[in-house]
């Protein structure tokens, strides 16, 4: 199975965009070799600025550039983009509704050995409450390109969440559409919704559940804002249970987004697979996924114990 770093794909996509659009400007805060914005920096040094370890400054500077018609992509780790610079994102980026694309890498528990301080488990929640902000959590390498191109094409602020580790490329998928959930397998007993690396875990769970005679509808909800409420409501109406999986706190992220729609429009039981009221810790990504109950077998268990 092909394995790719999402951030490699991001860097390469930025270079392609930079060739097509001279208004694209890229910013980083001393992490360009990790976020891979260095690929753009090498190719277009006049349109790349490194701010050093000063994420708040980078974020507000992006607003100044955008006010002059620039399409700004900026990157740092998710903990810093969404956490450290949040007020700048709120007032200078989101309130201004500027064409700024925050591409945050190293999100989630799979950051691994760096431990809790560097493992963003709150970033989707922090970005999701901001008006005007679109959010995409791509599931693999190729989808990272889709997400970046969608952000480039659609005006306004975006938050794109990428991981640190290599991720397997998912088997043939339907076409990526910004704002639309992606049906991966159809099914009638239970719907599993996931984003990011959890789509792969959910796929493993779906295959095992199929062997037990349980028909799983698997949806990749890569776009968290605007959320595809149609596909969510359809699942609520047509299957008996919804399980939502994310490499994020169970409060405020994808599961909360789904819950909000379901509670308002068609209440059914929703089970959350995510990190429950804990910080992360050091370890290897695979170990941590097990420790925090974020693996395929954990999703399977959640389905089996809740499917009456």
């Amino acid at each position, binding site marked *: 199975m092909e394995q790719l770093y999402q951030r490699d794909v991001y860097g390469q996509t930025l270079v392609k965009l930079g060739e097509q659009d001279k208004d694209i400007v890229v910013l980083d805060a001393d992490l360009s070799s990790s976020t891979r914005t260095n690929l753009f920096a090498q190719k277009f040094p006049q349109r790349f600025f490194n701010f050093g370890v000063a994420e708040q400054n980078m974020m507000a500077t992006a607003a100044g550039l955008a*006010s002059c018609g*620039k399409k700004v992509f900026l990157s740092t780790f998710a903990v810093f983009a969404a956490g450290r610079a949040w007020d700048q994102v709120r007032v200078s980026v989101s309130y201004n509704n500027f064409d700024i694309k925050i591409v945050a890498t190293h999100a989630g528990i799979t950051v691994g050995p760096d431990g809790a301080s560097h493992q963003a488990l709150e970033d989707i929640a922090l970005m999701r409450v901001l008006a005007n902000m679109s959010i995409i959590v791509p599931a693999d390498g190729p989808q990272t390109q889709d997400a970046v191109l969608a952000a480039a094409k659609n005006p306004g602020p975006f938050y794109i969440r990428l991981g640190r580790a290599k991720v397997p490329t998912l088997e043939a998928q339907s076409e990526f559409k910004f704002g639309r959930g992606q049906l991966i397998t159809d099914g009638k007993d239970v719907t599993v919704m996931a984003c990011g690396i959890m789509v792969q875990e959910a796929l493993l769970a779906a295959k095992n559940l199929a062997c037990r005679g349980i028909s799983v509808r698997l949806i990749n909800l890569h776009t968290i804002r605007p959320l595809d409420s149609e596909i969510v409501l359809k699942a609520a109406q047509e299957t008996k249970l919804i399980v939502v999986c994310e490499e994020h706190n169970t409060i405020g992220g994808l599961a909360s987004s789904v819950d909000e729609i379901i509670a308002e429009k068609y209440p059914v039981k929703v089970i959350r697979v995510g990190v429950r009221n804990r910080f992360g810790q050091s370890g290897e990504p695979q170990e941590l996924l097990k420790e925090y109950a974020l693996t395929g077998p954990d999703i399977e268990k959640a389905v089996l114990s809740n499917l009456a």
Partner: protein
Amino acid sequence: MTIEELETRARQVRRLVIQMLAKAASGHPGGSLSAADLVTALYANVLRFDPANPRWPQRDRFHMSKGHCCPVWYAVLALHGFFPQEELFTLRQRGSILQGHPDRKTPGVESASGSLGQGLAIALGMSLAARIDKLDYRVYCLLGDGELQEGSVWEAAMACAHFSCDNLCAIVDANGCQIDGRCEDVMGLEPLAAKWQAFGWQVIEINGHDFKQILAAYAQAQTIKNKPTVIIARTVKGKGVSFMEGVVGFHGRAPTADEAERALKELA
């Protein structure tokens, strides 16, 4: 404008500020009055702009980082024809183009502000955009002195010097007061000039109510190469209204009808 004309214009601006705030019954008179001469002179004699086309790509940029003092900015924008003067008296009302803190729905406003400490970075972005586009516009950013207590100001100060932004001029309205008292008592800022110098800036220190000095500083800033310039303008909070001058309480309290009447008499 001549210095005499500027003095007349600034009095007119201060009158509008008092009238707007009295009508709104909320807002920030102290810092609006301390910055009145600086903003009046900048728009009258320095900035390149076209009120009929506020987004003209070659316009000079002005950003008010101390967003709470927007009444003085709105008054100056109206006097220069960015929008009708009647709009001034809708300040802070529902549906108004003049929000309590700057918003892009106001013609002439480039970016929102209001959360202190972000504006200098925004100005830096405008300065870098000029470099990328090879345009010769200049960027001006007005900061408060209390605002300089925000750490993000110094991140931006470091970066403006690092990127040698000589098309950028920061103006510090150093009125010495903030909400909880005198800046030096709340959180000391001095030596202010030495701080900016240490960050790699050209520093010009002036009396921010002396138009001769203000114009000379703006002119000198344009000649400085390879580094950004900061004008530290020593001002008086509430300047022009005797009972507001240096009075911390008028940072964020609008004048009552009676106070407004007295203020307008003084500014007649």
